[in-house]
């Protein structure tokens, strides 16, 4: 670079000499500002000191500072050979923890103290139909009260003083999903598309396996926007400023909005396409106006994701995977962390 500069000076009638005999001193600095590279020339000597700053044209966008990247993390919290539809963990006090495991026909309750199991209760729950793809959901009111939804049944359970459960069959069952209820389509494995909001308003979408809308922590998104994982195999982004429905490809059946990390965009966790004979993966997407952009690395899991529910903290998801190699059902907590 120095040689190129001296050659150019020669063309203009100048020449490079030793320090003491120079008419002028020239110091060139290659610098970088927010908008690009700069050449900075500082001229001193017989005339008044002069500083010349010249922007340098560039062919490519200058890469910004690497930003934080979200990464999906999975922590296996329970494994068993019997199917798990959903699970919940609650702390009774500082030293006692209770685990609830919902299976297709029963609920298992384990109590631990100081890491040691001190209680195991098993209660049969009714069912109004058998399913090859049973789905269920646990809603924990507190550490000792839970409500379970599965196979057209709703079961209320409480410790009083032992674990007791009462089940009733509810046609057109509404499953609570935060501020909205989804109507389960018995005896199938999906929701009818009717969503009932807390103000009793009802919205009709195509029948879906799961759905997600922006969380309260998300900025710039209307709460009326939804991503619907439809039973026709299409995932649709509906609502918003544009009167458009965008079809999102490569998404699986189960999705969940997580409170945003690494920013304030609407972030949705989604399973992958395929079927139950293949390993699955989780991918985090950022939703802008009509686009879903995959962010960060996907998380591979060793089998199909059978359950993916947003946890009550809004920041994590409960996931159940059937490990294809071992046949074991793995209950996991999925979170997203910000990393550089």
């Amino acid at each position, binding site marked *: 670079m120095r040689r190129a500069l001296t050659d150019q000076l020669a063309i203009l009638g100048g020449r490079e000499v030793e320090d003491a005999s120079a008419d002028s001193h020239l110091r060139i600095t290659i610098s970088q500002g927010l908008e690009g590279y700069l050449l900075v020339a500082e001229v001193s000597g017989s005339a008044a000191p002069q500083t010349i700053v010249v922007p340098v044209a560039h062919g490519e966008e200058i890469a910004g500072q690497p930003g934080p990247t979200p990464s999906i993390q999975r922590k296996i919290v329970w494994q068993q050979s019997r199917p798990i539809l959903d699970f919940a963990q609650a702390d009774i006090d500082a030293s006692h923890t209770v685990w609830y495991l919902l299976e297709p026909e029963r609920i298992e309750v384990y109590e631990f103290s100081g890491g040691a199991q001190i209680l195991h209760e098993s209660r049969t729950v009714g069912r109004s*139909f*058998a*399913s*090859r*793809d*049973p789905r269920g959901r646990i809603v924990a009111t507190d550490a000792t009260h839970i409500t379970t939804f599965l196979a057209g049944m709703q079961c209320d359970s409480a410790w009083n003083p032992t674990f007791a459960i009462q089940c009733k069959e509810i046609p057109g069952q509404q499953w609570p999903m935060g501020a909205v209820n989804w109507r389960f389509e018995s*005896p*199938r*494995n*999906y929701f009818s598309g009717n969503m009932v909001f807390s103000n009793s308003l009802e919205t009709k979408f195509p029948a879906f*396996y799961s759905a997600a809308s922006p969380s309260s922590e998300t900025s710039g998104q209307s709460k009326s926007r939804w991503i619907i*994982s*439809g*039973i*026709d*195999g*299409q*995932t649709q982004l509906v609502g918003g400023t544009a*009167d*458009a*429905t*965008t*079809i*999102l*490809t*490569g*998404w*699986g*059946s*189960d999705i969940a909005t997580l409170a945003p990390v690494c920013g304030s965009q609407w972030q949705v966790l989604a*399973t*992958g*396409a*395929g*079927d*139950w*004979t293949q390993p*699955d993966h989780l991918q985090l997407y950022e939703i802008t106006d*009509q686009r879903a952009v995959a962010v960060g690395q996907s998380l591979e899991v060793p089998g*199909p*994701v059978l359950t993916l529910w947003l946890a009550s903290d809004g920041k994590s998801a409960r996931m159940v995977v059937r490990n294809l190699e071992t046949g074991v059902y793995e209950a996991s907590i999925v979170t997203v962390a910000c990393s550089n």
Partner: protein
Amino acid sequence: MLVSIGRAEPARRPRYGGTLRVEIGTVVNSIDPSVAAATPEEAAAKEEICALIYERRNADGTFAGVAGTGAFRIAEWEPGKHLMLEANPEHGGGRAFVDSVEIQMGKTAHDRLVDLEVDKADFAEIPPQDVRRAMEGGVRVSQSQPDQLLAIVFTPGRAVAEDAHAREALSRSIDRAAIVNFILQKEGEPAGGLLPQWSSGTAFLFPTAVDASTAKNLWAQIGGSPRIVLGYDASDPLEQSVAERIVVNARDAGIDVTATASQGATADYDARLARLRMVSPRPAAALARFAAAISPLTGLSADPLAEGAPPQQIYDHERAIVSSYRVVPLIWVPRVYGLSARVRNWTAPASGEAWPFEGIWLGDAQ
């Protein structure tokens, strides 16, 4: 307005609905388990169908209870031609994902392959020797472990079939390895016994090597000018190819064999090729069902083999059948299925397992 970004892919969760279109080559005339099948091939196809419509089995593996208690129940039945099954909503394991299964019978291997290629069928049996062609035609292919035994079964009462030297001579003349390598394109294994090594652990005790000189000597001991008429299933190209190969091998040993296409069990032949499918991976159960299947064809008594019989007893039983040469094991053949692109969650059935139609779903079902 609908904005589509790329092609939609199927969701992972099972989808209900649709009709699974099935084509088979075998003609099944009765789906009543108490009615004996005319051929081992019909017995095998009937076994598959009954496994879809019956919930329970007896201890000996035969079906129990009432038709329609299984994952499917009969909606339409035209014997020998067409069977329409509908999902049983009361099934204890849960309703099947597909609404119905339509089975077309008597389709030739060529027609089955073409129908898979043009998406007129979702599921069809493919001859093992056609695997490469099917894949080149864009057909999804699924293959089981080799669990079908192709064997020669001699017809009782026929003069040459009643000659032990003739039966043994033919058995020893056959180059089983060549059949596997050239006809099956290595998609199978030579068979000397009635059970595979992985099941019985004693298959190595039954030689499979060709022994043309002994075959020649045995054949020479037979008086007159005997000839063996070997029948094969006219709708089965594999059987035809194997039969033609046997004719060549036999000729090399001086044995006069003629191959003829047969329809059903009553054709005029001294021996015929038969496919025997393992209905259980357990050796005692599999051997017992083999013995029951070939008994009407060979006149061999189907002595019951107790469940849990010790290996020595199983081996002795197998040896007794094989040494009679009334059944001549040839090759183990895998079950090969062609699948349409819309079939989801397909897992090839293991030995003794039936078509897993209750667990599959269709990608474009509504």
